[in-house]
């Protein structure tokens, strides 16, 4: 159970935090309520102080009037006593009794004490006092006051009671005044203790009312803020959802526009943007479709007659032995140039398909070593013609990558024939390698090489290192450009390195799994032997 709690608490916390981060509404509501709470508390506290002060002041006024009244009556009673009565204690008791009686009716208590040397506690001053009252209720400061002065004084205190079933202590006011006993001319100090119960009650009532009002006010503010932010946030959320759908390709999505306010204008602008986007994308799609269609049509329209010409050319070529020398030569030229024309046409069509975005991958697990060996086998006759040799350096373990085998084979074939073309009869090394992220093929020749800056240009269409150089293997000038497009289709890299007279290296890197981003290649772009020269 405790484990469950431990697991769920951070989960709840995390969700809460996510909600907090994502919801403007929650943040606005909470901050408004917090600020309002601070203001409401301050105002409430101030009001409460004011009310309390007013109530206590009025009570003190009333109490002082009452005390004066009692004192006047007591003095009147004392003066009315015949001068023959000389027992001071009796006189004092006679003085206290009516006051105490009046106090029981009016809700105050009274203490009477003798004057004594300063510092004498109240209990040693022969106090007479109302029943149940605790003498500690009279503060020492007031007692000391009457040691040096006879002037009436008052202060706040806590009235305590003694004995069984005594009421709880209450805050109160104690008023002290001195009375002279005519019998011996001595004086007594009278302490009137008035409880502030009613003031306290009123105050707690006011406090409760203020508290309730404050909470209600905060709730109202919270609800108001929530409603207000909702009015703003809801359209924003709607816009967000529509924007997300637009981004996901649902181009027909639009916001609903109602009214003419800022939000409606935002929606209008948003919709205009979406419409423009949609139109642009439609145009591009249409363009791409038209071009794809065009390429497909051109392809078909060109291929059919070319096939006929090709067949006719072959028939003539087969029969050339029976022709006169000029016609025979013509048949041979026709045949050879048809080959070139055909390769060029196929390459051109292929590149247009890339441009039209019509090329798609046909993925399968491909062992690059197999592909390389196959290509090297197929190009052996060409290599023999140019009296060069292609050597394969591959690990015994298969170098498998998810790829379109026809395209990869075409890339490798282009790289190898290109190398044979430029190798100047020196040996060509094809290296294959793979790690768990990528597989790579590097084709290294030691021929003419590439000048600085040319390594980027080799992939340009119809680019030739030396325009004056004789065309030898009949390359169309599109091979490397097509290879680069093929590589990009796989999400791979095709890079070239070269140095004049030291040869060149072309490196193809493919991700092991289609769609994975490439970070590094298992083979270096600059071959090891060349790097040593630099060092």
């Amino acid at each position, binding site marked *: 159970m405790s484990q469950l709690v431990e697991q769920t608490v951070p989960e709840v916390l995390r969700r809460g935090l996510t909600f907090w981060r994502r919801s403007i509404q929650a943040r606005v509501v909470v901050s408004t309520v917090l600020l309002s709470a601070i203001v409401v508390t301050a105002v409430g506290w101030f009001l409460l102080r004011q009310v309390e002060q007013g109530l206590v002041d009025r009570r003190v006024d009333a109490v002082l009037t009452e005390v004066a009244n009692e004192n006047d009556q007591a003095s009147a009673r004392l003066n009315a006593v015949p001068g023959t009565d000389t027992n001071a204690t009796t006189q004092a008791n006679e003085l206290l009794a009516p006051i105490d009686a009046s106090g029981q009716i009016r809700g105050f208590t009274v203490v009477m004490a003798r004057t004594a040397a300063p510092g004498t506690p109240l209990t040693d001053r022969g106090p007479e006092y109302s029943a149940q009252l605790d003498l500690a209720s009279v503060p020492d400061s007031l007692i000391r006051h009457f040691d040096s002065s006879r002037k009436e004084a008052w202060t706040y205190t806590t009235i305590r009671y003694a004995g069984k079933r005594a009421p709880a202590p209450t805050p109160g006011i104690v008023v002290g005044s001195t009375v002279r006993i005519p019998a011996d001319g001595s004086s007594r100090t009278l302490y009137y203790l008035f409880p502030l119960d009613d003031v306290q009650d009123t105050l707690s009532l006011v406090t409760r009312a203020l508290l309730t009002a404050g909470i209600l006010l905060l709730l109202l503010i919270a609800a108001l803020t929530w409603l207000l932010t909702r009015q703003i946030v809801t359209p924003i959320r709607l816009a967000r959802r529509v924007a997300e759908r637009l981004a996901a390709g649902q181009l027909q999505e639009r916001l609903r526009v109602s009214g003419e306010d800022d939000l409606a204008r935002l929606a209008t602008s948003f919709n205009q943007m979406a419409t423009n986007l949609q139109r642009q994308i439609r145009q591009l799609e249409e363009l791409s479709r038209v071009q794809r269609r065009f390429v497909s049509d051109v392809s078909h329209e060109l291929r059919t*007659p070319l096939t006929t010409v090709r067949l006719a050319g072959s028939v003539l070529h*087969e029969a050339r032995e029976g022709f006169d020398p000029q016609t025979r030569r013509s048949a041979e030229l026709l045949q050879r140039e048809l080959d070139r024309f055909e390769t060029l*046409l196929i390459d051109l069509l292929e590149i247009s398909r890339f441009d039209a975005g019509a090329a798609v991958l046909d993925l399968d697990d491909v062992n690059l070593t197999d592909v390389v060996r196959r290509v090297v086998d197929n190009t052996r006759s060409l290599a023999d013609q140019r009296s060069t040799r292609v050597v394969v350096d591959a690990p015994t373990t298969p170098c498998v990558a998810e790829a379109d085998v026809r395209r990869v084979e075409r890339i490798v074939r282009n790289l190898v024939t290109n190398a044979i073309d430029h190798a100047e009869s020196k040996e060509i090394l094809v290296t294959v390698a793979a790690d768990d992220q990528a597989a790579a093929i590097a084709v290294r020749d030691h021929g003419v090489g590439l000048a600085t800056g040319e390594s980027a240009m080799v992939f340009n269409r119809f680019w030739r290192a030396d325009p004056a150089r004789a065309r030898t293997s009949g390359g169309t000038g599109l091979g490397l450009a097509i290879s680069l497009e093929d590589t990009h289709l796989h999400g791979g890299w095709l890079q070239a390195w070269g140095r004049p007279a030291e040869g060149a290296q072309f490196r193809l890197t493919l991700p092991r799994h289609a769609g994975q981003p490439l970070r590094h290649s298992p083979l270096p772009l600059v071959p090891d032997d060349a790097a040593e020269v630099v060092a």
Partner: protein
Amino acid sequence: MLVVDDDASLSEMLSIVLRQEGFDSYVVERGDEAMEAFHSYRPDVVLLDLMLPGKDGIDVCKEIRAESGVPIVMLTAKTDTVDVVLGLESGADDYVVKPFKPKELVARIRARVRRNEAPGAATLTVGPLSIDVAGHAVTRDGHPVSLTPLEFDLLVCLARKPWQVFTREVLLEQVWGYRHSADTRLVNVHVQRLRSKVESDPENPEIVLTVRGVGYKAGSSGQQ
């Protein structure tokens, strides 16, 4: 040899080339006339263009395949995987992309008309299948299964060596007669077609098994 192509020059040229190689040919220029010609001429091989007036080459291919296992070689100007696979799935045994060399075409045709007469066991067994090699008949649990000659050759090739995994390249060479590597999509499509005919559940094949990353092999029960 039935040649179905809408381009008159190409059809005529094809007839000339084929005649040189010793094949008789009959030319039809419209897709909707192809079936009629097929019935009256009874060709050994059909050369079929994919884009035809009257009726689509794909439909013609399906109709021929519905009533006959005669080898069909498609002539296509399209190299997209979709188009090639569509053609193969409609029943074509092989395809040649325009422009082709005459030798290439003749090699394809010869590979189709040649009978696979390799010596070996007269009867092979793969799982519930029983293959009568000489009689060109396949039965599954006693019920005959109708296969085209190409599908039959493919099955026999796999069944002869059930312990061996055939790469697509090897199958292309042995069944289709390609000397150099060609399009492995041919193998994929025909294995699918073969499975749909001989397997009880083509989704979970038991007779023609895929060996991932390598190729195909016959089911484990093998020869008995």
